[in-house]
């Protein structure tokens, strides 16, 4: 039952998103350096953190799939990565808008933070054609899990490498030196981060519920009408 707890989760997500937006625009002070532009931070950074953590979570589900062989963990892994890729698109677009407003350029190739996120995003963009290339569902799930584990391990390594690299222009907001964020900004950021994480969890559960309903429908059709021929290779794992 993937839909279990979906309604309270959805309500909590809407409340958290509304609270986050209210804090961003009516509570958090204007940044002394960037001014109003800095409001993008409360959207862009939580999206980036949630997306990267989501990739790692996809890897954890893939480990569970490889250990147990249960296809439902492959579905969890697939949907986690799928949702993180969607969030990744939002990160790249909002980041570009912020870059244009702050630095005058849509993209800065010399900046390790931007390029490293793009590398991670493109790595996970290959996950779909990779799955599509394998027809046998068992092999597809197993190989996809190996991919998810390897790529999931790459994400924190990539993050650490960027932190250790000499930054050019991208701000280090959570630096241990120079004090970090003031209290009101930190509170707003944490609420936005919680709201974004809740949104990710809600959408993952919603997607799995839809896939489960679709899988049950196929089972019903097979029971009533006999075996249904497979229409080519499928990317998403079938959830029952």
């Amino acid at each position, binding site marked *: 039952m993937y839909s279990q707890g979906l309604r309270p989760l959805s309500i909590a997500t809407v409340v958290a998103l509304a609270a986050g937006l209210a804090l961003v*625009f009516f509570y958090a002070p*204007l940044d002394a350096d960037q*001014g109003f532009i800095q409001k993008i931070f409360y959207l862009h950074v939580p999206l980036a953190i949630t997306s990267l953590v989501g990739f790692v979570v996809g890897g954890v589900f893939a480990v569970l799939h490889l250990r147990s062989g249960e296809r439902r963990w492959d579905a969890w892994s697939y949907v986690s990565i799928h949702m993180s890729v969607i969030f990744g698109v939002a990160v790249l*677009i909002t980041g570009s808008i912020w870059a*244009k407003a702050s630095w005058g350029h849509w993209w800065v190739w010399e900046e390790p933070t931007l390029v490293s996120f793009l590398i991670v995003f493109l790595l996970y963009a290959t996950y779909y054609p990779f799955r599509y290339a394998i027809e046998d569902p068992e092999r597809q799930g197993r190989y996809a899990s190996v991919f998810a584990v390897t790529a999931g391990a790459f994400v924190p390594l990539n993050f650490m490498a960027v932190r250790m690299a000499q930054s050019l222009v991208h701000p280090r907001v959570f630096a241990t030196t120079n004090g970090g964020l003031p209290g009101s900004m930190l509170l707003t950021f944490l609420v936005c981060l919680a709201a974004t994480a809740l949104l990710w969890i809600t959408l993952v559960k919603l997607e799995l519920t839809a896939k489960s309903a*679709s899988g049950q429908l196929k089972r019903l*059709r097979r029971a*009533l*009408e006999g075996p249904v021929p497979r229409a080519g290779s499928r990317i998403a794992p079938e959830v029952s």
Partner: protein
Amino acid sequence: MLELLAGAPALPLDEAGKYVAGAYVVFLLLIVVYVAIMAAKLQRIERELRELAVVAESRANGATAAPGREEVNA
């Protein structure tokens, strides 16, 4: 509520405002597109379920009207 909004700082919707609005609108659009795709999927599931319900009902009616038909056909 109105007093609270009146007491809130004015939003500087000048040059910076359009970029901030753009970023938040992009986020909103992505969610709306995703929800629209999910709604389309839900519609398809509902349609297929209705078709299967018709098949199941016609089989049940056929079995009631001619109980021996299944054996004859087999």
